[in-house]
């Protein structure tokens, strides 16, 4: 029997009892979700392709897993790994601290500071980091001696050979750190500018100086905007340190290259490098989500980490009236 939704539903023409929707005795209408056959096709297709790639990788004898295991924890790789880690950390530290300085300079009322910081960003963001890396690596050819003193006078505190003063690792740190400074400053500037001007006014009205306002009120709020892109920058930096191999920086990639230059086991050694880079980038996402939760405090709808959710669940949130 079909259910009529017309006005005359209650009057039945074939003599049987009428089924009235919404009244006792009405048949329960079951909702049937729409079928998606396309999803099954797409899933099967991608599954088969993926499986074939995995199988071909596993069967490929050139991959040479014994060599991979042999090198994975070797001293050569581990020492390179260590260099990669500290180089990433140091370059990001230089980039972050310098980036705050450059960002504040760009927002300064002083036109000289604005122009100089703008030019800095223009140069270091506008040239490839590979070029900058080689440039710093060959600094000794550009400035054979380095002199530290008071500009435009004869006062000299220190004078020495540039190549002694700037070995490959220092050159790598300079190149990566200065490049990062340019990018970080733009991220930090955007973060600072995202904070409502009323925040600064409120802090000023309470007698806080501009410096204290920046440290206590503006930067903590800017962090919420700054952290996600800076997390990306850190992951990018970790991988960019591989470029240091062009000036033999003894990082993970340099050491891997040194190894396969001798034994020609290029593919297994690149797999070793990939495993370590993947492991490190995976680890890096942990502090990022923790920091995002930390600086998302007080923001409705901010993404919370597992820890923050745990804490929040213990103090009931008041509804917004």
């Amino acid at each position, binding site marked *: 029997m079909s259910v009529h939704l017309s006005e005359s539903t209650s009057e039945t023409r074939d003599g049987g009892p009428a089924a009235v929707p919404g009244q006792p005795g009405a048949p329960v209408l079951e909702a049937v979700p729409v079928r998606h056959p396309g999803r099954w096709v797409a899933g099967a297709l991608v599954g088969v392709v993926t499986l074939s790639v995995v199988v071909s990788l596993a069967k490929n004898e050139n991959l040479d897993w014994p060599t991979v295991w042999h090198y994975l924890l070797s001293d050569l790789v581990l020492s390179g790994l260590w260099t990669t880690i500290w180089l990433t950390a140091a370059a990001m530290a230089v980039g972050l601290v310098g980036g705050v300085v450059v960002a504040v300079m760009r927002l300064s009322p002083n036109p000289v500071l604005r122009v100089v910081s703008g030019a800095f960003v223009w140069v270091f963001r506008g040239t490839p980091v590979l070029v900058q890396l080689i440039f710093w690596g060959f600094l000794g050819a550009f400035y054979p001696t380095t002199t530290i003193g008071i500009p435009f006078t004869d006062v000299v505190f220190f004078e020495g050979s540039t190549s002694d003063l700037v070995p490959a690792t220092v050159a790598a740190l300079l190149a990566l750190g200065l490049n990062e400074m340019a990018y970080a400053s733009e991220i930090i500037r955007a973060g600072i500018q995202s904070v409502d001007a009323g925040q600064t*006014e*409120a802090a000023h009205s309470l*007698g*806080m100086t501009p410096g*204290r306002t920046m440290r*206590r009120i503006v930067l903590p709020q800017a962090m919420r905007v700054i952290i996600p892109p800076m997390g990306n920058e850190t992951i990018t930096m970790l991988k960019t340190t591989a470029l240091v191999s062009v000036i033999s920086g003894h990082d993970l990639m340099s050491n891997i290259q040194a190894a396969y230059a001798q034994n020609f086991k290029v593919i297994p050694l690149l797999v070793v490098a990939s495993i370590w880079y993947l492991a490190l980038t995976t680890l890096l996402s942990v502090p990022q989500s923790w920091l995002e939760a930390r600086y998302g*405090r007080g923001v409705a709808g901010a993404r919370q980490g597992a820890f923050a959710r745990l804490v929040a669940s213990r*103090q009931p949130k*008041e509804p917004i*009236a």
Partner: protein
Amino acid sequence: MTTTSTTYAVQPGPDAGADAAGSGLPMVRAEQVCKRFGQNEVLTGIDLEVGRGEVAVLLGPSGSGKSTFLRCINHLEKIDSGRLTVDGDPVGYVERGGRLHELREKEVAARRTEIGMVFQRFNLFPHMTALENIVEAPTQVRRESRRDAEEHARALLERVGLADKAKAYPSALSGGQQQRVAIARALAMRPKLMLFDEPTSALDPELVGDVLDAMRDLAADGMTMVVVTHEIGFAREVADLVAFMDGGVIVESGAPDQVLVDPRHERTRAFLSKVL
């Protein structure tokens, strides 16, 4: 000090000398205050005196310069000419050789500690709880101990009826609650003058009452207040002085009964007929 001794009582500052206290010197005195934004003359000669313990309400259509004038009082806006003093001291400037020399940031900040301000959009610090908002300036600027500051903050939250919201972040508070926390935050610095910039304009109508109650309470305690508002009822009930502004000048000022009930100027009458 002439202020009565209450929880909000003013602590005599270093420059509240013997001659300032009790001499009948007004808390706020403006003489021919002018302010331009580029070519746009926003204030074209403001004269106003607000006595100690008085509540002054600034009325006027939008764009009349009342908020700008209020912001000049604590130097959030810089005046271009004229004289503007709070408790006898020029705001943001020092007078030397017939000119106003702008003070350095630190000195301006020190003067602002004595002037509390409440904003239309509350401007609570969203990354801090209500309690942290209130203790921020006393601990950071005044170097009060965390314990004393928190004790004072809890007393202030109690005063504005939000004792149970100490740990709430601003995003979890209603507009009216946020504004009352903002009032408590300003009071935590024990100011001798409170400025209110349209404190109820961003609120839902049913939340306005709580904020006005907190302000009434404050006025009854003898706090000197300058209030920009459209709440004519509040002005009539609480104000000692009502000033009507239009076109960057004070068109007329006086007791609320006079200005609000029997205004002398056509412009005041026209404005009141629109808002009443």
